[in-house]
């Protein structure tokens, strides 16, 4: 933390957590904080830990969450500005591929830009599926710029529980 408060290019910019946290996944939040700390630090020099491109030139790369309960695995992805027609989902035996392109809105000539923070372009994300799923019952919905995929699990090993009576002799 000390490093980051000293870095002048970061002053006054983001990352002060707002309010008390009511997060469902505290450990995950912590990891995200740590990642951001490193990313922020290296960004200041215009370079990234792994020699990646400088901020601003990055193409659109959607972020994905995966959750599961006993019934299914749920994948959600933030894809603002895409249409369901622009998204392509492919399922293989143990992975799911989300492909798409975020197209830039038609800009007329003679425009001056002040902010250009949004990113565009095509992307492909391949996500491993941790459990066996039923490929015929996979459903996907796209609403308000968020893609939701439900991958129902196959229950093989889980046999129905049976209560066994103990007889008194």
């Amino acid at each position, binding site marked *: 933390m000390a490093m980051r408060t000293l870095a002048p290019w970061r002053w006054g910019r983001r990352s002060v957590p707002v309010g008390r946290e009511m997060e469902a996944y505290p450990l*995950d939040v912590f990891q995200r904080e740590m990642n951001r700390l490193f990313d922020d630090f290296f960004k200041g020099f215009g370079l990234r830990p792994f020699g990646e*491109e400088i901020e601003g030139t990055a193409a659109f790369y959607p972020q994905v969450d995966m959750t599961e309960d006993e019934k299914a695995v749920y994948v959600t992805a933030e894809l*603002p500005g895409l249409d369901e027609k622009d998204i392509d989902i492919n399922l293989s035996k143990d992975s799911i591929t989300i492909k798409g392109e975020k197209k830039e809105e038609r800009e007329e000539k003679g425009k001056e830009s002040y902010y250009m923070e949004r990113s565009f372009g095509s992307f492909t994300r391949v996500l491993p599926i941790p459990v066996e799923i039923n490929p015929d019952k996979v459903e996907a919905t796209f609403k308000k710029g968020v893609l939701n995929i439900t991958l129902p699990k196959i229950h093989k090993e889980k046999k129905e529980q049976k209560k066994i009576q103990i007889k008194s002799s």
Partner: protein
Amino acid sequence: MAEVEKSREAKKQETPGNIITERIRTGRIYMPDVDISEDRDNLVLYADLPGAGDEDVSVTLENDVLTIEAKILPEKSDAHRLSHAEYGTGDYFRSFTINEPIDREKIEAKMKDGVLRIVLPKKEEAKPKQIKIHAG
């Protein structure tokens, strides 16, 4: 490979704590990415607000401060176990100071697929005028 991919992401940024007042709702607030451009007649703003529908977003122009706010209700139920997470969900907040005089009656805002588009028409006096040069 995973690390390399991670650093390429267009990260969702949280709103800095010092520019907003204390809120009643708990949870995180994110700063949406925006594009703002200007032509002769209009200022056009695009903001990425994934997860927000037209009923969740409020756009206000008070004096010369344009504020975009969106309330996002968490979708994930507590029964789900998280296996992989890259983004957080929370409300969006961002405000801008607009220096040009805007025709307030004609502002248009539209929400589509998680992208907000606001067109702010300039007032007639703010539009650039071509001045004819007469040969002397």
